[in-house]
């Protein structure tokens, strides 16, 4: 088991390094210059040349890469050209926001997805199953940014039931220091989390329905029923426990989905997270922010998958045996 874990961790580090390296060279190879405002106003070329030299971007690319890795090894992610601050500081501001959004979305995704999947499996081929199945397929087919825009238009702009964007009301709640401000935060979080969570929930429901159906046809479930156990106990204790095993894989897979989805959702809802930071950095060719964001994102994805693999191995001894033997 330890050997297997060490191998997986080593592979994870190699993947993160490969992603960072690829990102570094791709963003530098992309045409265009950093140090530009977000507006479409042109900038005096002299200004660009001046700052390019100042930040050492006139050096050969491989020199910049070696310097970057050397700094990275000491925990220095570099300086943002556009934000005029250390990349680590910018990421430290953004990561918690994305994490909270992803967590809320994950809760919605799994709570709604699991409930729907179980309900559909139990009532297989009923009207409810068919209707919910089609709704889930419809929602799952929707691009997250489109669903976000629709929810924003209906619930924020038309009905004024939710704020248009942002993370909190800057007048009433500049700090999260009271129950009212916690409420304000939840109020701001609701639409972006729903946008991200509902699309995921639709996929989870379909996945869980199939897993549950497979399990409730097993012999041991029939035995449980024959022993006279209550149906609720048969489903929730005997069937669901085994149907949840593939669900662990889904947790690992949900990370990349949530992080890529967050890029769009954060932009639509002006949510100041990693996605928004990365999009702006790409447009501004803010090299070190882009590379830093790739580092954090790939680490989170790899970590998510690693944890899922570990949980899977803990839950299913056959995997441990195969892994150890490999």
């Amino acid at each position, binding site marked *: 088991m330890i050997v297997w874990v060490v191998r997986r961790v080593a592979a994870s580090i190699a993947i993160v390094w490969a992603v960072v390296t690829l990102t570094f060279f791709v963003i530098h190879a992309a045409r265009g210059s950093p140090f*530009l405002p977000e507006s479409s*106003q042109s900038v*005096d070329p002299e200004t660009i040349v001046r700052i390019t030299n100042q930040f050492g971007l006139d050096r050969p690319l491989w020199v910049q890469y070696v310097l970057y890795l050397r700094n990275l090894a000491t925990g220095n992610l570099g300086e943002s050209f556009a934000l005029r601050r250390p990349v680590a500081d910018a990421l430290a501001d953004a990561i918690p926001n994305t994490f909270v959004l992803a967590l809320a979305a994950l809760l919605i995704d799994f709570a709604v997805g699991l409930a729907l999947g179980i309900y559909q499996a139990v009532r297989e081929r009923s009207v409810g199953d068919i209707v919910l199945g089609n709704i889930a397929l419809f929602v799952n087919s929707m691009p997250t940014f489109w669903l976000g825009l629709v929810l924003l238009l209906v619930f924020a*702009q038309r009905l004024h039931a939710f704020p248009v964007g942002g993370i909190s009301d800057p*007048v009433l709640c*500049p700090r999260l220091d009271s129950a009212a401000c916690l*409420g*304000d935060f*939840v109020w701001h979080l609701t639409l972006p989390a729903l946008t991200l969570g509902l699309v995921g929930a639709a996929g989870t429901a379909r996945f869980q329905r199939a897993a549950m159906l497979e399990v409730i046809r097993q012999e041991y479930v029939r035995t449980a029923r024959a022993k006279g156990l209550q149906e609720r106990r048969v489903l929730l204790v005997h069937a669901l426990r085994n149907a949840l095993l593939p669900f662990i894989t889904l947790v690992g897979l949900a990370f990349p989905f949530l992080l890529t989805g967050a890029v769009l959702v954060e932009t639509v809802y002006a949510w100041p997270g990693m996605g928004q930071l990365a999009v702006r950095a790409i447009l501004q060719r803010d090299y070190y922010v882009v590379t830093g964001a790739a580092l954090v994102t790939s680490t989170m994805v790899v970590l998510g998958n690693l944890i899922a693999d570990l949980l899977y191995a803990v839950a299913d001894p056959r995997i441990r045996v195969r892994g150890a033997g490999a």
Partner: protein
Amino acid sequence: MHTPRPTVFAAVACLALLGSCERRGGCTGDHCGTLVIAYAGEPDILLPPVSEFAATRDVTEPIFLKLADLGPSGNTVGDEDFQPQLAERWEWDTPTTLVFHLDPRAHWQDGQAVTAADVAFTYDVYTDTLVNSPFRSSLRQISAVTTRDSLTVVFRFRQRYPEMFYDAVYHMRIMPSHLLREVPRDQWRSTAFGRAPVGDGPYRFVAWKAGQSIELAADSTFFLGRPYIRRLIWRFTPDQQVAVTQLLAGDADAIEVLITPDNVQRACADPKLACYPYKGSAYGYVGFNLAAPGDTTKPHPLFADRDLRRALVLATDRERPLHNVFGELARVPPGPMSQLWWIWDPEIRELPYDSAQAARLLKRLGWIDSDGDGIRDKDGHALSFRLLVPTTSAIRRQYARLLQESFRTAGVDVQLDEVDFSVFNERARAGRFDALLNVWNTDPTPSSGFPQTWTKAGFGRSNYGRYFNPQVDQLVDRAVSAAANRDQARRAWRSAFEMLNQDAPGIFLFATENVAAVSKRFTDVTIRPDSWLALVRSWRVPSDRLTDRDRVER
């Protein structure tokens, strides 16, 4: 099956309800308002010497003062129309020596007095090559700034010219030397002071939540009078449309510019909002590259020909696309100029829209449609060029398509090169384009920006198309250095523009008219076109219009 308990939903609903409820605060009287400004973008740093972004300018405007500021007329010539800020008065010792006397009441928000040493320090910073201020070149005519005593500072100029005073006061916001002296000059771009500045203006910095908001609070001890609005909050969004939506939803109180006719219509129809039109500082144009793309030593195969450029200008109806894109929010400029400039004059002669004359001229140049494909050709080459357009600007993309169609009817094939803004800028400055659809935001005066974009002095800088006419350059020099005589300068500028228009280095498409929207809670709203929040100190919310958001105490 276990069903979710209603209490879970109730708890979430209660939290959401708490969040949506406004709390009653305690502030009453004339100094209670809170102004929330919706803004697409975010400042890079709150340190004026090292940033030229509009967002930085807007936020630092109420934090740091100048020695004097533009008056309501916007006149940049002479010193008559300027209004005192840090300097309570000034006089000319000699024609090239300007003496400012600082207001002894002026103080930094940490309690220290503002001194002449701060002014000298500021000039030193702005002109230091290590700091690399974008405003350094605007101060090139000032040879020295010295102190005479703690409240008297002397500016010496290299020569006499009409906008000496403007150059002395407009570009520099005075910095606190006691807080910044120790910051190494090459580290000014990332100094911590730039994220939590201490100023001398009517508002002091409170907080900057990255990606979210910046808050300023009124300085009740401000020596020129306590501001009426108690708090200024910029609410940042990544997108202009989200900012407009926040305004319409009541999540914000004001926006600097609505940009599209649709936004203007919606905002101005909203009973809670008042619209404030003001002159825009931007102009847009199709610029022809007179040099071969990527090789400035060779002429462009098409646009080196002055008559061909003239024919293309004659073939362009500039009014129709302007109304399609901007409605009433822009005007066709009489040359490369913004409406903000005092020399704006619709009577300046330019090439008219005359498709028949354009067709005759093209035919005379040998460009005819010999193969009947609808595109003119000569010597086997189609009359075709590529137009560089940034994808980040919806307005320019819309314009490009309209122009493409318009040129097609004249027998000219235009292919659009739509690239992201970063690539657009890179190709523009490298001269790798046939024609580009560009926008310039201008200073309040043509003297600084125009030479950099339309004379030989702009080669390798902002004169992307490498247009050069020595007579135009002479006229511009004459206009810039004319004695302080507005009529004389105006005549020189007019001649320069008319000559440039005849050379047709570009098609000058639009000069914007801005419309700001502000909640009707606010009164005494005055907008100065070059900096819309310059007079925010005098905006107010009458006590009978205060909402709980204005009263809330934090």
